[in-house]
């Protein structure tokens, strides 16, 4: 069986992974993730109006027009509506980025107040802007517990693989799952993909799960090869090549379907949901890369070593031990 060229490229795959992971770790330490969707820092402009405005949709529309015009230059990123039960007023909260100029905010506040007073002389419209600093410590415990949970989960999954397919497969699977989880998180740090603070761990979990599934598909073919008398004597490289050739289509189809599912769901969903679903394609892509390129190259030396070890420690039959004759008593 002809060994494919990609199996010989282990140093290349390792170099790529090492470069990405190291860069990711450095950038995570220096900058962290791009958690701009969580609005860690920024400003809000809060416009509240009483029932005299609320009762007439045309007035509400006019007030929103005044706000939009005044806030045009400050860069509104989002908007959240509500009801202030303390003031008994309807509330519009415009969300603004941290680099917003305070002078512009004050000017906008003044403009909205003046125009609203002119447009609704009998109405009560209040405008205030606030500086917001999110307290990120709230994610500390979920983050470390999530990392522990993921590690324990993957190790238990690999113990099962170890029992079913051998320790060598479990070892490669462990390397792949750990690689995919870290690689995915590193890519988020490097590419500065906007994400919610809770999301990188979730994406790492998705990557580890896909990694295990894709590796399992190859393990199944390896086991088939081991069971088949015609293929049992294959060298490690040939057995891995057989498993790869028998499973790459399944892996590619499963990855393509999963990516398509996330793409369609993300495409249709609302903007906030899209921020989670579209980046979820990345862990699937990472798991596919590692399963199709890194896994076979990595498993050849592992399998070779384990095959040698098994051959060396193979129990051999030396025949039935002869029963020792009882010593004859000396007369």
């Amino acid at each position, binding site marked *: 069986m002809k060994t494919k060229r990609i199996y010989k490229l282990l140093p290349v795959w390792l170099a790529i992974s090492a470069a990405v992971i190291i860069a990711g770790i450095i950038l995570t330490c220096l900058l962290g993730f791009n958690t701009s969707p969580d609005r860690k820092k920024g400003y809000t402009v809060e416009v509240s109006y009483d029932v005299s405005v609320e009762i007439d949709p045309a007035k509400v529309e006019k007030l929103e027009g005044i706000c939009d015009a005044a806030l045009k230059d400050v860069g509104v990123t*989002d908007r*959240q509506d*509500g*009801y*202030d*039960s*303390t*003031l008994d007023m309807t*509330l519009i*909260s415009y969300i603004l980025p941290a680099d917003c100029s305070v002078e512009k905010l004050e000017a906008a506040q003044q403009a909205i107040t003046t125009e609203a007073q002119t447009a609704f002389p009998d109405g009560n419209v209040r405008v*205030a*802007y*606030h*500086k*917001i*600093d*999110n*307290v990120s*410590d*709230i994610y*500390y*415990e*979920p983050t470390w*517990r*999530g990392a522990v*949970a*993921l590690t*324990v*989960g*993957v190790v*238990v*999954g690999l113990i*099962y693989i170890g029992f079913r397919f051998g320790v060598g497969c479990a070892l490669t699977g462990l390397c792949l799952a750990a690689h995919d989880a870290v690689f995915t998180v590193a890519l988020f740090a490097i590419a500065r993909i906007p994400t919610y603070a*809770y*999301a990188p761990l*979730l994406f790492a*979990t*998705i990557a580890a*799960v896909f990694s295990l*599934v894709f590796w*399992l598909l190859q393990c*199944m073919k390896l086991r088939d090869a081991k069971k088949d008398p015609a293929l049992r004597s294959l060298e490690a490289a040939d057995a891995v090549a057989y498993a790869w050739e028998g499973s790459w289509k*399944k892996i590619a*189809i*499963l990855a393509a*379907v*999963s990516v398509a*599912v*996330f793409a*369609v*769901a993300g*495409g*249709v*969903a*609302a*903007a*906030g*949901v899209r921020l*989670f*679903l579209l980046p979820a394609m990345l862990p699937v892509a990472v798991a596919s890369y590692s399963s199709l390129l890194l896994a076979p190259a990595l498993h050849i030396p592992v399998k070779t070593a384990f095959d040698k070890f098994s051959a060396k420690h193979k129990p051999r039959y030396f025949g039935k031990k002869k029963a020792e004759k009882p010593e004859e008593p000396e007369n």
Partner: protein
Amino acid sequence: MGKVKSAICLVLATLIIAALSFICFVALPAGGGSITQFDPVVTWIDKDANLGVEYGANESYRGGGYTATFYPEGVISAAEFTDNLAGMPEGAEKDEYAEKYKKVGNLYYDAKENLDANGKVTEEFIAKFNYAKDRLVERYERMNIENIRIDVVDNYALRVFVPQSASTATAYTSTFSLFSYMGDLEVRYGSDEASATTALPAAGKSIGDYVKGAATATDGDGTHYVVISFTSEGKDRLASRTADVADSGSGTLFFKVGENTVISLSITSAIEDDRLYISNPSSPFTAEAAQALAILIDSTANAQVPASEVFGGDTFTLNVDSIATMRALYGDSALVYMYIAFGVLFVAMMVFFFVRYGLLGFVHLYTYLLFLLVTLLCMWSLSFITISTGTFAAVLLASVLLSASQAIVYENARKEYAAGKTVAAAVKNAYKKCFWHIFDLHIVVAGVSFITYAIALTQLSGFAFMLGLCTLFSGICALAVGRFMWAIMMRFTNKQGKFCNFKRVEVEDDED
């Protein structure tokens, strides 16, 4: 299985799926009275606060949640200052009020208490504020509520957002006042609050020497308790201080945090246990209310730095103001768009199965619907599961797993049939070949997911649990339900190969 039995099974399966679909997706008129409509199960499942959708009486549920702004003692908002000033008659009092508060940034500060000679916020105030902020963050962090958010507003005020939830909204909003209590824990004993004397701690000692902490417990009939544990020293002191209850007939223990009484416990005998199980028979605790109270007591009893060290002899309070109901951040229709996305994917999946496998698509349709309906019923019955982006992703991934497993079996059966076997033999062989492959895939994913769920918190926990549960259902559906459906549906056709869109491979004889 004979044709008649298959027909009965198919009719039963159809009826069950139809009935469950009605319960899960269709709102039914109730026919008068105070209840006008039975809402479908899907509306009863708790939703992520960021996903907006309107349902309930008068569309009362719209996603989002509640925010409250906490102003430290001696600090007020610009709106409050303006309102108070406008409400005062012209005169010395108004001038005094205007003089008392100075604007720094967007907030008004009591100049005498909180500002220095240069009009800047004093270091003492900053230390008190930071202490209060840390306590508030710690308490909410321990609640482990998804989507909770705490912001520092205008440098020295705090704003907390708690998500609206169909079942727990009241309990969570009550934390606004409960968690604003600052100060040390003190246990007082007496016939009434005014005359009660301090039982714990003794003068010059810390409450941590007497109280180990607080937790929650639930008994068999669902009553929730706050459990307060005492050290042996605390137990002995409490026993000696409450010993006179036998003479007076009754007494009350007051658990106070700073100036606020959080528990008033009537007792009729001396307390000699090292644990107190406290319930509220007149207004029973909900699980969340008991949890909040236990967190408050535990955080004050085990505070690394006692409040008295930071506040000195003064009190320091956080005043809850500006409580607002906020709409869902992602918009009122975010959940509807998610349902539409799911619908599009469902149609795409079924088109693939019907085009590729002909009428065998019905087998997958029945199997998938059963999987989906059971998943929805579980989401509804498990109170800790919400419809969120995480759980949505988990259902999508499990759906991919189920569809892939079904497709793998169908493809194997197709190959067997093409090789010349009968459909029945092809199906049998396909399942025989694929059983352990599908089993391994599902058991590994479910195992990893459930273990992750057991350790992780919030979003990851919800995602992992749903992935584990759905994978379990997917495994059962792929290996048992799908095969059963295939067996009963195949009974009604004589052209079984055509039913499955399977074709024989035509082998041309080479004739020399």
